[in-house]
């Protein structure tokens, strides 16, 4: 359960300050599939980063599964990012020198899972995204769609109940995009909460509900 109450985010650069989010209140229930839409610069990524515990709001309250996020320490937030929330980025953010296998394994290493469990889970995920044969390749040797599937597998490594995807298909052709969407839809059917940012109405059509942002505010 994700509850945002009056969330504000102000960026200060030098003497200038920019209000990226102004009083956002949103509730996302368990098992929902939400899409967030809005023009460029409307604050979608800023909002996703706050939901994903990567960034902190300037004001307002964020309650995640009855925990006030503002009260958590850095390492507690790291644990949330590690186990509770999987994050998929528009630009994949894979480690360039690590293989597909190692990239997927990373969150499990930080969780201290043992070698056998890691091997089993990485194998399972690689098969699920259909890239087992590519396990030894580095991101630079994979296509964009393949890289995003690896990133998705990484986000699922510790089997988090919540999956956040910031324009997961933004850098992909429509076929690769549809493949990713098929996987996301399956994951939602399995019971995961999914929040996805997109510019594309076809992509947004996969979701149950759309939240529209304009200039840092929810418009619908």
């Amino acid at each position, binding site marked *: 359960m994700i509850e945002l109450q009056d969330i504000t985010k102000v960026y200060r650069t030098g003497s200038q300050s920019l209000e990226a989010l102004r009083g956002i209140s949103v509730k996302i229930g368990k098992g929902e599939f939400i899409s967030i839409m809005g023009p460029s610069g409307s604050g979608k990524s800023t909002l996703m980063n706050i939901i994903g515990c990567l960034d902190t709001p300037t004001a307002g309250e964020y309650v995640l599964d009855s925990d006030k996020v503002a009260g958590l320490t850095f390492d507690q937030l790291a644990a949330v*990012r590690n186990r509770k929330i999987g*994050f998929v*980025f528009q630009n994949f953010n894979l480690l360039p*020198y690590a293989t597909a296998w190692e990239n997927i394994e990373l969150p499990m290493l930080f*969780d201290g899972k043992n070698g056998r469990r890691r091997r089993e889970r990485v194998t399972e995920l690689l098969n699920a995204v259909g890239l087992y044969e590519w396990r030894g390749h580095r991101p630079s040797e994979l296509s964009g769609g393949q890289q995003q599937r690896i990133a998705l597998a990484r986000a699922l490594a510790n089997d988090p109940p919540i999956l956040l995807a910031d324009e997961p298909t933004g850098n992909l052709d429509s076929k690769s995009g549809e493949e990713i969407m098929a996987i996301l839809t399956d994951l939602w059917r399995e019971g995961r909460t999914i929040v996805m940012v997109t510019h594309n109405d076809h992509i947004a059509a996969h979701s149950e509900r759309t939240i529209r942002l304009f200039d840092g505010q929810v418009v619908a």
Partner: protein
Amino acid sequence: MIGIFFRNLFRDLVRQPLRTALTLSGVVWGTFSVVLLLSFGDSVSKAQMKRFHGMGQGIVLVFPSRTTLAWQGFLKGKAVRVTPETVEAIPEKVPGIELISPEFVGSRLISYGRKEFRNTVRGVNPEFELMRNTIAGKGRFIDAEDMTARKRDCFIGDVLATDLFGTEAPVGRNVLIDGVPFLVVGVMRTKLQNSNYNGQRDERCAFIPWTTYSSLYGAKYVSNIIFRPRDLGRSKAVMAGVKGHLAKLIGFSAADPDALGVWDTLDFERQFTTFFLAFTVFLGIIGSFTLLVGGVGVASIMRVVVEERTREIGVKLAVGARRRTILWQFFSESLVIMILGGLVGFGLSAGALQGAKAFPAGGFTDFVGVPVLNPLVIVSTVLILLAIGVVAGMIPARTAASTDPIEALRK
């Protein structure tokens, strides 16, 4: 994880070979300096201590002098006179003395054939040998029978032996001391000696029984007393006992500071030890500064590495790495560089010290000894290396660990 770690490290080290070489060389050179300076300091200390022990080990020298306080009707300035019999009887009255010998000293003509030298002759008893390290290399030292029979036997220093006899074997031959024939019974084993009193160094002296000395030359009062306390730590207390005993017996104030001149070599040795410890520590500090420069190099290179890998740090934080995971990653990388440099530095210095062994003994090595890689040097260097490595590694690692994930991902 381990695999990734080493691949990472290897990648960082290999991608910029010149940078790696420069960083490593700082640590290598620093370690090399610390090891060499410490082992040099250590060997100089040991060599000097050995030379100091050349005069004797654990001994107290007592020189009867003149009183400087009036005492029971005597004016000050009275000569303190001690007979050799009094000296040998001291242990019966004063506890805690292991060895004691009276000593007469005089300069006399010693000749063999046509060779003649004016050298120091010392009249002593057999206990002198152990106290003063005048160990027999050939033959023997003065013995008990020489003493009781007042034999005209003499024991000579190794340099005097070569001066008189050249290549001939001295033991069993006769020399003349002030025209009186003496049988050479032994030659001193060569030793290094950097301290001395009353006359020439032992290598040029002749040693004869004090009984012979006093009957032959009519000497009644010893020029000095030499003793070794049983417990070396209690030399002060034993000396106070000796002084009190002699004061009562001979008649001077036990509080008189100058009636007996005292050279407590144990006291001296303690100062000597402290001085050379300070000397070695000083050298170690100089070396540490060199190593510190190497450490600064590692720290600044690691700063650059952290900067280059900000994005990687961001990704790791985003998928749940804790601060200490990031901290440890960069800290251990710095430490590996330090250890690598340290190992090479140790290797090089071990080679250099192996080379130092090739210096011939004698001359210069008598003063500085032969530096070796002993456990003390190794342990000190490793500790210095670790201390500097921890500081040098911690600074960039903390920078890395305090990265903001969002800022890092934007890079």
